[in-house]
């Protein structure tokens, strides 16, 4: 009886771990892919958004940009959901790989020229972001707290 319960728990734990792993993969990939769609959509616009701010509003109705925005919203919601299932200190370092994945997508999908220096830079940024994200959370009172 006890063995049966333990086995059921182990199977349930494994299923849960697998589900968390699937969510982490999805969350890690969703952000770089959303950036890809944003870049893809923006490059198809006729006006440069930097000098024609109206182009930014036009961008929001562009299908590719809209997909990118929806993916960013989905990423935010999924990340929040994931936070309820796994520790922040585990999720953040893993999802920091997004910087390298974005660089990879830029190279493969958008055919960008990526120098070795930039690859090393992106890898360092991911590693550094993972280090920052995995540092122990401390809560300290800000100046003027409680006013």
């Amino acid at each position, binding site marked *: 009886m006890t063995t049966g319960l333990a086995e059921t728990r182990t199977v349930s734990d494994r299923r849960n771990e697998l589900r968390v792993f699937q969510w982490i993969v999805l969350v890690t990939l969703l952000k770089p892919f959303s950036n890809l769609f944003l870049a893809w959509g923006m490059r198809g616009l006729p006006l440069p958004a930097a000098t024609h701010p109206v182009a930014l509003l036009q961008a929001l109705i562009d299908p590719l940009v809209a997909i990118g925005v929806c993916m960013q919203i989905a990423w935010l919601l999924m990340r929040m959901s994931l936070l309820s299932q796994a520790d922040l200190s585990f999720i953040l370092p893993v999802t920091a790989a997004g910087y390298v994945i*974005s660089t990879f997508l830029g190279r493969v999908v958008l055919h960008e020229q990526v120098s070795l220096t930039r690859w090393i830079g992106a890898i360092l940024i991911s590693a*550094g972001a993972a280090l920052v994200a995995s540092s122990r959370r*401390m809560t300290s009172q800000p100046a003027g707290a409680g006013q």
Partner: protein
Amino acid sequence: MKWLLLTLVILPAVVGDLLQSREMKLAANPAASLPGALRVLRLIAARRYLLLSMLCMAVSFFAFLALVQTEPISFAVPASAGTFVLETLLARVWLKERASPRKILGTLVVFGGLLLVAR
């Protein structure tokens, strides 16, 4: 232009994050009995700097859109990690948060990566 846009991506995001962090700490959970979304809406209504932080996020997002229109995402996305460096620095100076050695090391590694990406 790319450095101006990158600055517009990073600075408002940093200000937005810091304002959000400060306001959420000052708010000290005043409406804990309300469900999640309502609690956040009530907080936003009560704390105008939270609204300002969202405005900052919007500016950062639109600047990012303009940046990826002309610059490769292999530059724009990693370079936007400059927020890590500034946030760590300003959180220490403005919010008086303590930074662990690991966080300082991570920030320096990000900074080194940024220098390489910017070359």
